[in-house]
């Protein structure tokens, strides 16, 4: 459940956790009802209590119609889950709020390379800065990441942000997040990328505004 997951520290993490709770509730009710019915039947209809079975082949719609009715209820819940989820997906993956900070992340066997545009705010000028395995961002700011890979498929995963995205060689994939709490968060690679996949990880350092300015100064 929620306490099994790491604390959520992104703007959309809370929505994801609410979606999890919604699905968990629906699934739990379905679990209790179906398992309850099965266990009841196994106790009630043992051979010792029910020596001869009732002949119920259910060949007509009138007889099995209730199954289709129940399946319709399943369908309604399915649609509710996807309806609820669609906006979260759109928020995280198909729309991008305007960026406050831009970085480029290139994945390679077996580390993350992070490039910042430097004081001029433009990439591929002399003042670009690079940190390997560490992504420094300010808190409460929208960060755009352009994700690429230099060799095989990797996957950008920050559990605390509830964010994951594969890095594909030959493509630049945009993603965004807005952290809500300063701190250091694990940043493992989630896609098998070779013998060094185990242990390919970095950390995302979320700075407070003052802290971030100081860090930029130091660079």
């Amino acid at each position, binding site marked *: 459940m929620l306490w*099994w997951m790491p604390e959520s520290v992104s703007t959309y993490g809370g929505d994801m956790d609410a*979606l*999890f709770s919604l*699905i*968990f509730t629906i*699934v739990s009710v*379905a*679990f209790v009802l*179906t398992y309850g019915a*099965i266990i009841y*039947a*196994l106790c009630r*209809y*043992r*051979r010792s209590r*029910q020596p*001869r*079975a*009732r*002949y*119920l*082949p*259910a*060949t007509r719609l009138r007889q*099995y119609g209730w*199954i*289709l009715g*129940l*399946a319709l209820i*399943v369908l309604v819940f399915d*649609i509710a889950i*996807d309806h609820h*989820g*669609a906006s979260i*997906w759109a928020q995280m*993956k*198909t729309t991008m709020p305007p960026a406050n900070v831009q970085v480029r992340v290139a994945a390679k066997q077996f580390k993350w390379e992070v490039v910042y545009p430097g004081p001029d705010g433009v990439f591929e000028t002399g003042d670009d800065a690079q940190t390997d395995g560490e992504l420094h961002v300010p808190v409460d700011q929208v960060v755009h990441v352009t994700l690429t890979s230099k*060799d*095989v*498929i990797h996957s950008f995963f920050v559990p605390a942000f*509830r964010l*994951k995205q594969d890095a*594909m*060689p*030959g*493509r630049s*994939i945009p993603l965004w997040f807005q952290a809500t709490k300063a701190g250091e968060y*694990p940043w*493992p*690679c*989630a*896609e*098998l*990328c*070779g*013998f060094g*996949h*185990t*242990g390919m*990880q970095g950390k995302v350092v979320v700075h407070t505004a003052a802290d971030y300015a100081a860090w930029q100064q130091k660079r």
Partner: protein
Amino acid sequence: MHGTAQSDIHPAPSSFLRRCVFSTDHKVIGRQYLGIALAWALLGGLTALLIRWQLAWPGTPLPGSDLLSADFWEGESWLARSLAHGSIESEFYNKLFTMHGTIMVFFVAMPLLLGAFGNFLVPLMVGARDMAFPRLNMLSVWTLVVASIVMLVSIFVPGGAASAGWTAYPPLSTVAQYNSPNWGQNLWLLAVAIEFASFLMGGVNLLTTVINLRAPGMTYFRLPIVVWFQGIAAILFMFSVGPLIAGAVMMLLDRLVGTGFYTPSMGGEPLVWQHLFWFFGHPEVYVIMLPGLGLALDVFAVFCRKPLYGYRVIIWASIVAGALSFIVWAHHMYLSGMDPRLAMPFSITTILISVPFAVMMFAMIATLWGASITFATPMLLALGTLLIFLLGGLTGIFLGSAPMDIYLHDTHFVVGHFHYTLFSAVFFGGFAGIYYWFPKMFGRLLDERLGKIHFWLTFIFFNAVFLPMHVVGLSGMIRRIGDPTLYAFLKPWQPANVFITVCAIFLTVGQLVFVVNFFWSRMFGQRASDNPWQSTTLEWGTSSPPPHHNYDTLPVVVRGPYEYSVPDSPQDYLPQAQAVVAGPTGRA
């Protein structure tokens, strides 16, 4: 017939080689598939144990490795090169989970459910003397033997076994500098391709048999569910495997000739492989699952002494599920870099699949209602199939939701989920089938007491292994990592990993009970009568085991497959072929 005995028209071969090795008899071939599947299952289980050993106690030498001298571990043997002084390193770990997935899906699940049960049961159940093409059938099983040999050889070539995962995503699987196995990966592709050829031949044979060789009176809606699900599985496999074979040929060309179909710097596209692989991969899940569920459903009716509730609805639901399985493949690829606008349509089709499966589950539960249940081992295992598959379906709702999958994708939550859906069909369903049809296959009953011990050990420890795996996955534990202790955020969960591994060891020990039972009962088990479970379907109308030609007099089918507890009938079951029961039962 004019009194000509069937044994004269259809004589059994007299030489040992033709009778037991190069046989064209579907019953012998079915048992050969069973042997191949169970042998591979031992190796698949061993790889699972090694994976769990490493996840619980990373870097610790394997038990028994200190029995070998330091000189041995410095040496050049395969074992010494694979294990660093007895401990599993990252490279070998990647080989382990790659082989585990490949073996379990292609060399255990398919040979067991399609090969063994499809071959043994389908001709008997439709009332045929053999498969439609007995020689093609022999070719299928020997092609699988060739595939098995190639796969075994791939483990021992220089560079070792394939290590790019059972999904073999390029460029990791295609570009030499990114991953060390070379011939291991080539032979892996070759073995899987040969395996596909084997099951394509098997599928053609099975469908032809069902369409053309049904006994008089055996209409499609009098076929047992087992036959229906085998047929649907064969169709799904034949429609889906073509794109994958095309993809595999391109991958082999990339590897051997350097064509670059999947290499971006050469104008290729790695995502193409994922689309081709999963276009096959998702129907493949149902190719495995449906036959397993079919076995459980048949067993259900027998031990409930009750017709399957809504037999036709179950069949229609499985057809709908099979059709839907062709338009859900990209749910494995929500985060792959494909256009994110594609995710929600695939999420909708994926979640829709829960509807036909819900129908099947409700029909199974309704079959229990008003039944007269005996808890023999096959029934316990069929119930295990239902209970575990149901939970696997429910956790699938989380993963089918595209936004939820952003967090859960590639974590141990996924590993837990697909073991609930596949282990239930393959092992609970498969074991239910083995315990139930063992008397028909070998003429003896499996021991009930050992069977029940086997069931309870499997049921308890299966859940103890895979339920906590969901929790560890929710904490963020990634798949395919060989050392969770390297990750600070996973350290608090290490006791759970140790618990899972200990339970996995007990789960394995539970399977040894089955191995003992299998061989002991094969030799000394109680002799089975023709119809030990008082079942209705055709195969129980002939002797146990059936004669070479299956039926002395071809059965004439007069009713559906699950006529149990029919009101006003003298016994609580009415065999499908009344004529055979009235006449000679076929023993020469």
